[in-house]
């Protein structure tokens, strides 16, 4: 029987690349694709895949909260988190959320097949770079990553994190209400609670918070002009 894989990434071009990579492996099939976290949860519940590959930086519902929601629905889901960010915080959050694999997007062509194989064999997989980071953190701080550590967003509920991401992405309360099938009044209440809990006074504070806590990701432009020419190569 084939191993069925669900891919969740907001870039179709990345999904194409991942699909091409995974389908070269005999006995594996990509059973579905999702372009954001919410769609990933829906499709996972419909398709019941063996492995789910989830990008961290997705709109509407980021990959870390997607992982949390998926495992709330079914703790047996096997999830690999795929990310452009190799920050200690993202690694900790991914582990805390319950991901069983962590692969950097830049290393995906090399590591993703090994990661899926590991999960297929009921093991976990972390890229060598991630192992190095975790080890460095262990040596520096004298402690290892623990699932019992306090999460980075201790004061926000899952619903509040979802709403924070949607507001930080530029949605109005009305739009958030529509996306989450809630009343505008309910969203407004959540919004007030979020602002109060975090002691924020403006949506700008919330955007900064969302970026710092990986609820949304931004790509910075390259630094201003560097000396061009063969010497710069």
């Amino acid at each position, binding site marked *: 029987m084939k191993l069925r894989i669900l891919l969740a990434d*907001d*870039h*179709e*071009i*990345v*999904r*194409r*690349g*991942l699909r*091409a*990579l995974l389908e070269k492996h005999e006995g594996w099939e990509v059973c579905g694709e999702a372009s954001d976290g919410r769609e990933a949860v829906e499709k996972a519940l419909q398709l019941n895949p063996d492995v789910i590959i989830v990008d961290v930086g997705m709109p509407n519902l980021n990959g870390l909260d997607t992982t949390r929601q998926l495992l709330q629905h079914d703790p047996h889901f096997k999830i690999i988190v795929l990310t452009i960010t190799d920050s200690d915080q993202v690694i900790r959050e991914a582990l805390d959320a319950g991901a069983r694999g962590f692969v950097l*997007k*830049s290393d*995906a*062509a*090399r590591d*993703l097949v090994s990661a899926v194989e590991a999960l297929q064999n009921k093991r976990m997989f972390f890229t060598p770079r991630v192992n190095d980071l975790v080890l460095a953190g262990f040596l520096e701080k004298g402690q290892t990553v623990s699932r019992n550590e306090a999460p980075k967003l201790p004061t926000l509920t899952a619903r509040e994190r979802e709403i924070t991401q949607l*507001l*930080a*992405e*530029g*949605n*109005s*309360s009305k739009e958030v209400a529509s996306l989450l099938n809630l009343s505008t009044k309910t969203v407004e209440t959540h919004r007030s609670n979020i602002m109060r809990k975090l002691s924020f006074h*403006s*949506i*700008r504070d919330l*955007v900064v918070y969302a970026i710092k806590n990986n609820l949304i990701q931004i*790509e*910075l*432009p*390259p*630094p201003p*002009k*560097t000396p*061009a*020419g*063969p010497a*710069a*190569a």
Partner: protein
Amino acid sequence: MTIRILLVDDHPIVRQGLKTLLEGHSDWEVIGEASDGAEAVEKAKDLSPDVMVLDVTMPRMNGLDACRVLRRQYPALEILFVTQHDSPQMMREALEAGARGYVVKSNAARDLLAAVEAVSQHRVFTALHSRTVPELREE
């Protein structure tokens, strides 16, 4: 006539995705790949592509700097940016650097074929995502 394309992006998985898309077109050939701007400049010399599909943010030499070098050295080469940056300012900078095309990565599957078609005929092709940088809403 076959259009010979060089793909430049620091993520192999993105190059793979672009390649599967471009190779669906019978008259186009992906003749090589590079993972940063400096390697793109080297490979352009060796492979003489007709079109280069170039990312902006890359290690060693970014796409904008590579584009400036390439335009000086190979005036016939057409450069098409495929980038994460959904920004009119970045698009302007790319065109000023000498690119003929600009496509946002999130829409690449939709826009890339038309963009390569256009730039290979020395026409300009630019497309930003419909959702621009979010406005900050104070309610």
